[in-house]
């Protein structure tokens, strides 16, 4: 194999796990089996809000074929008034979400679970469980939850000293908004609403758990973090982390929704009680009713600007649904919404509102699309009044290196301005439009994350490379890691195999989320690989009997660093691996660290729509997404992140919504009525990868996965206005709503 002149960073290599995924060999959680395996099913609440007076599982236990039954009585007891924090999650809530304790808080809330010989028997046994409820009035929408006489979900949550469904608040402040608005020549203030939407990962939650009589537990599950699964299962079941081995199955999409557990602790209890491996797989309906979604919202945004286009002040108030337990992503809404702009005076507020809906889970840039939707729509109106091009208006107010953001930090080098300029010079910007077609623009920001990451790089006896990291690969991260390792070692990428370790085989790594994975794992893989190169030089120095400092590593070979070093024939990786034993033993290195320096990501999108005013259908006919991606290690998968995020945003804007009926139950728990974008709805999604390398990363990586879902909601709303002159302040802009508004 030619080891000279390989350059892999920036190349669209074939992903290491690709062959398995195009042949059906890849093992997702629902594909796993074990000898003696039995099946678990969950009994769910038929009421949106009730106190559980008693649960009688006797009849279910007696049914032939039933092995075990679980309720919250089998879980560790976490007093409701004492926080138990694990990262951003509170285990008090997590435990009660996994199996309801004092109360059921939404229709579909798990109450008990049964493991039986078949799914059918488990299902039948669930029906035999008798639950005595004291049914309460419920609140689904934000307005119903925050009105003075609203039914209270959690008595001990207080706001302004009184029991309340407002579970938390957050604010960001800069300058003095009152003064800022006084300076403004025009001020626009508008109110907005968005519906709750689901992440819509196609793979439903699934796991297989086997617990031995000494509590040693193996979990195969689909999640965004095997270490998160281990920790949460340990908390809820009381089995120590050292006894739990969580093995990450391939994951069929998560988008944030698989950053918490639903089934794993339940299956663990069922397995422990039955002595049999237990498999649990959610149906699509269960996924829709009881996992995810992200918040619906209500917000109000006010922006003031001078006639010259300078923004003088901005204010935003965001109420976000948390579902049954506290934890709405208010930080994403209130923190990201003004981040692209240099605004002297600003004030944003977020309110975390509980109501009788399923507990929200993270969804791609949690909260940020909601905040950006309101702000970017108002900016469009301000630009229109000022008779400025919306992109020029944004350019005039754009944040740059050195700008102090409303949410706190002072920006280092970053490429927001470049995304605006890229859009201004893209042919899409000037392309002609026909009647009933319109063009809209919007920008967006996401924090991006670093956090704990571990890696191990081992040289095989035949001189190839195995890299192990600890973050589940959702969208091709293994391919990027292979590119980086091959580049550093100077070898062909096909000689690098990349694996995701389980909790027993690799050090702690934070979950796949926050757009952290490539940023963090590239850091630890780079450090590990550099250590391996150092070892390889050391081995060559032993063979040649010269100083290690006199050796350099180039194109997959150790070679003397100069004429003075001596005249030796270079030693390849394979030759050094062959000599590993006599020169000191196995060659490999690992690194684990809490990574820092993940800098934020910015994007600007252009969207064209065409509105069918007879049917009320707004159709996206052209889309261009420009984003500062830092450095694209594998450009095709970076483009894929942009395209996938944009299309989820299109679904959010145009069709997707949780619809509750009068009984407080979700009316559309399947893909027929909860309509995610399909292939024929869409055009190609053009991408512009702006590369302003992150100065705090060896390869310049910035997270790329989340920003792309931030601008589409408002880009589409602005485009529809441009097409038909009607502004929409409520999502989704679905055909019935569009028709109603046009006919007004």
């Amino acid at each position, binding site marked *: 194999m030619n080891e000279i002149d390989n350059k892999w960073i920036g190349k*669209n290599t*074939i*992903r290491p*796990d*690709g*062959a398995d*995924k*195009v*042949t*059906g*060999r*890849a*093992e*997702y959680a*629902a*594909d796993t*089996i074990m000898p003696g395996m039995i099946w678990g099913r969950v009994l769910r609440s038929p009421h949106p809000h009730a106190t559980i007076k008693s649960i009688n599982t006797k009849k279910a236990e007696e049914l032939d074929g039933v092995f075990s039954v679980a309720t919250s009585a089998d879980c560790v007891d976490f007093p409701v008034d004492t926080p138990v924090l694990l990262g951003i999650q509170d285990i008090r809530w997590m435990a009660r979400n996994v199996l309801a304790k004092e109360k059921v808080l939404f229709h579909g809330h798990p109450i008990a679970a049964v493991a039986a010989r078949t799914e059918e028997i488990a299902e039948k046994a669930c029906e035999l469980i008798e639950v005595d409820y004291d049914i309460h009035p419920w609140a689904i929408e934000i307005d119903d939850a925050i009105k003075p006489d609203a039914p209270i979900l959690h008595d001990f949550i207080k706001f302004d000293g009184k029991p309340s469904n407002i579970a938390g608040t957050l604010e960001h402040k800069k300058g003095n908004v009152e003064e800022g608005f006084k300076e403004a020549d025009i001020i626009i203030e508008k109110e907005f609403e968005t519906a709750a939407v689901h*992440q*819509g*990962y*196609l*793979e*439903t939650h699934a796991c297989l758990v086997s617990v031995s009589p000494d509590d040693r537990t193996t979990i195969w599950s689909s999640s965004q973090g095997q270490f998160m699964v281990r920790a949460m299962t340990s908390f809820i079941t009381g089995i120590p982390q050292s006894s739990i081995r969580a093995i990450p199955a*391939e*994951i*069929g*999409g*998560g*988008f944030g929704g698989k950053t918490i557990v639903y089934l794993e602790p339940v299956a663990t209890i069922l397995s422990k009680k039955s002595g049999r491996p237990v498999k649990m*797989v959610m*149906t*699509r309906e269960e996924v829709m009713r009881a996992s995810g979604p992200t918040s619906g919202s209500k917000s109000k945004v006010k922006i003031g600007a001078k006639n010259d286009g300078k923004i003088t002040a901005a204010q935003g108030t965001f109420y976000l649904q948390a579902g049954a337990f506290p934890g709405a992503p208010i930080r994403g809404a209130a923190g990201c919404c003004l981040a692209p702009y240099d605004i002297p005076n600003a004030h944003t507020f977020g309110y975390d509102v509980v109501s009788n809906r399923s507990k929200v889970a993270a969804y791609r840039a949690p909260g940020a699309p909601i905040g950006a939707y309101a702000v970017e729509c108002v900016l469009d109106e301000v630009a229109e009044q000022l008779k400025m091009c919306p992109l020029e208006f944004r350019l005039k107010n754009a944040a740059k290196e050195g700008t102090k953001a409303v949410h706190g930090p002072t920006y280092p080098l970053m490429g927001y301005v470049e995304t605006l300029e890229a859009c201004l010079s893209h042919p899409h910007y000037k392309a002609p439009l026909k009647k009933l077609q319109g063009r809209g623009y919007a920008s967006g920001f996401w924090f991006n994350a670093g956090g704990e990451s571990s890696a191990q790089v081992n040289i095989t006896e035949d001189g190839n490379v195995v890299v192990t990291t600890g973050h589940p690969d*959702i*969208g*091709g991260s293994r391919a990027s890691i292979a590119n980086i390792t091959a580049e550093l070692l100077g070898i062909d990428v096909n000689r690098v195999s990349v694996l995701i370790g389980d909790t027993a085989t690799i050090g702690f790594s934070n979950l796949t989320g926050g757009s952290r994975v490539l940023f963090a794992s590239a850091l630890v893989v780079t450090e590990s690989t550099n250590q391996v190169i150092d070892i390889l030089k050391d081995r060559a120095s032993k063979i040649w009997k010269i100083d290690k400092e006199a050796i350099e590593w180039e194109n997959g070979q150790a070679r003397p660093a100069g004429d003075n070093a001596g005249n030796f024939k270079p030693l390849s990786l394979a030759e050094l691996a062959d000599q590993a034993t006599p020169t000191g033993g196995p060659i490999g290195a690992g690194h684990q660290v809490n990574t820092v320096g993940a800098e934020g990501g910015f994007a600007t999108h252009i969207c064209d729509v065409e509105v069918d005013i007879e049917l009320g259908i707004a159709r996206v006919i052209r889309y261009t997404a420009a984003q500062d991606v830092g450095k694209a290690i*594998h450009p*095709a*998968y970076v*483009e*894929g992140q942009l*395209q*996938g*995020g*944009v*299309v*989820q945003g299109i679904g959010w804007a145009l069709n997707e919504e949780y619809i509750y009926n009068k009984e407080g139950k979700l009316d559309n728990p*399947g*893909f*027929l009525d909860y309509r*995610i*974008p*399909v*292939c*024929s*709805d*869409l055009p*190609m*999604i053009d991408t512009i990868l702006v590369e302003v390398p992150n100065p705090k990363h060896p390869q310049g990586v910035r997270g790329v996965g989340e920003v792309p879902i931030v601008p589409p909601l408002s880009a589409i709303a602005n485009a529809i206005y441009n097409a038909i002159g009607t502004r929409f302040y409520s999502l989704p802009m679905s055909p019935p709503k569009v028709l109603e508004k046009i006919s007004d």
Partner: protein
Amino acid sequence: MAKIQVKTKINGEETEFLCQPYDTVLDVLRRDLNMTGTKEVCSSGDCGACSITMDGRLVCSCLVLAAETEDKNIETIEGMAKNGKFNVLQKTFLEHAALQCGICTPGMLVAAKSLLEKNTNPTETEIRYWLAGNLCRCTGYDKIVKAVQAAAEEMRENA
């Protein structure tokens, strides 16, 4: 309830199984025959992840009863690579990064293959409508459409 005995052909191989009258082909493939390449995502005919062909016709295996497959010819994702070689679509999907999580991929490939068997020169619109029953939440479909176009082109060149 007495189980039904069924004899059918799967990816060219004679196969016999016992099933309940209410079992779907998808149930039997995944649970009883351990052929888990075909994916279950909605169980209601709305996502296409369970796509297979039955006597050459593209169907959702979650909507076909296993008992109906007597004497039929079933093709699944497991039969797509032949003699250890990728089908052209499998190759172009990899080359075009047309998968992220990959859960939709088996169904997408089976559906796309069935399109290209009928039409080796589909327009972008024809591809988009043919695949409209196959959901993908990760890719935004862009690279999937391009991978199908590339496969069609290769098939035409090699025809």
